[in-house]
């Protein structure tokens, strides 16, 4: 199909007029990224889908996460912070081993938020569960409450933090779903690394958008939440566990 110059100008003009006449009202979302001055809304709920069938012996997501957020090791695995870890599941009858990444599951009903005495552990309106370290007193109730052991306490002084990911001794921290990236319209570092260097086992997207890739995949084949018996309605779902 080819457009004449006149048609092209006409369509372009109508589009510009349409945007100018009804500011804030759009029939089609033009872009996924919010502008920096716009707050997060309940129109989204961010989620992850991990396909265990594709996830193999690879650590790309863990490395990328810790690199992105400046989570460094002191060489003391018992107390080092971890935002995401690879868990190995072994079928004792057959000997089959599968691995899966486990991080904060970004529950709709997060137990860590229920138990927090200061309100530091909170769920953002778009479903991302975070720790406000400004008001965290380091009591670690949330770590006890989390059924996924997703949170870590920072035991030692931190240095060389990333500007977008402050970390400090005496506070609790966990996966932020790379909230600084999500706010800028990008995908989390683990998903990016899995797609680029890993086995393309992770999909990130909006659980409230019926046309999103993650929702299409969730609708097309069986998936599960970890510990579905707890009724936490997690934002991170798994296939093939």
């Amino acid at each position, binding site marked *: 199909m080819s457009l004449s110059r006149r048609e092209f100008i006409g369509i372009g003009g109508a589009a510009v007029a349409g945007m100018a006449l009804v500011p804030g009202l759009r029939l089609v979302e033009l872009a996924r990224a*919010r502008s*920096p*001055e*716009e*707050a*997060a809304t309940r129109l989204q709920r961010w989620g992850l889908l991990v396909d265990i069938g594709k996830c193999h012996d690879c650590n790309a997501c863990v490395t990328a996460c810790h690199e992105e957020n400046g989570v460094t090791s002191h060489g003391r695995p018992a107390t080092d912070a971890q935002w995401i870890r690879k868990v190995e599941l072994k079928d004792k009858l057959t000997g089959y081993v599968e691995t899966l990444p486990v991080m904060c599951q970004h529950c709709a009903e997060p137990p860590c938020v229920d138990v927090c005495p200061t309100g530091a552990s*909170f769920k*953002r*309106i*778009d479903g991302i569960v*975070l720790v*406000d*370290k*400004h008001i965290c007193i380091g009591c670690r109730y949330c770590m006890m409450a989390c059924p996924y052991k997703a949170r870590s306490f920072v035991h030692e*002084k*931190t240095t*060389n*933090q*990333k*500007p*977008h990911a*402050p*970390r*400090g*001794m005496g*506070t609790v921290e966990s996966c932020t779903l790379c*909230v*600084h990236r999500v*706010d*800028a319209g990008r995908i989390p570092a683990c998903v990016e690394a899995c797609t680029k260097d890993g086995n393309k086992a992770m999909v990130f997207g909006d659980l409230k958008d019926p046309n999103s890739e993650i929702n299409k995949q969730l609708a097309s084949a069986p998936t599960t939440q970890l510990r579905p018996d707890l009724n936490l309605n997690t934002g991170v779902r798994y296939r093939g566990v």
Partner: protein
Amino acid sequence: MRRNIKHILAASLAVLATALLTTAMVFAAETSGARPAFGPTVKTYKGDKCVEDTDYMRRNHMKVILHQRDETMHRGIRTQKHSLKNCVDCHADPKTNSVLGKDGFCESCHVYTSVSIDCFTCHTAAPEKNGQPPKAADPAGLKEKMRTSAVMGTINGNQP
């Protein structure tokens, strides 16, 4: 008796002269760009002016960043203007790559006024790497401004 008055007069003149000389020396030290004998070193390395009036920022910078912190943390509003990141990007010393240290923008003043500064136990005191201006753009350091005397005036009690 008359002699005594003469003595007192001479002594007070000497004291006055010494005081004047000392003041002149301090001023000379400041205008020549050397570090003054006391007080914070407040320098700006990037840009011509702050996001708000300097007077306003001296009194209210903590309120500004506290407000922005809650907006960003809880609502996801990430405007640059009042963010701590923006403070650090402009005020970090290119030599030390930090707002901390003896002559650091934040620390020198906070030490002088004896107010503890908690931001940098969690936040980095270094600017974002890609946010740094190229060094070649400002070879003579012309944009670097020393505002030591102005700030000291405020701290010493000349509040309007």
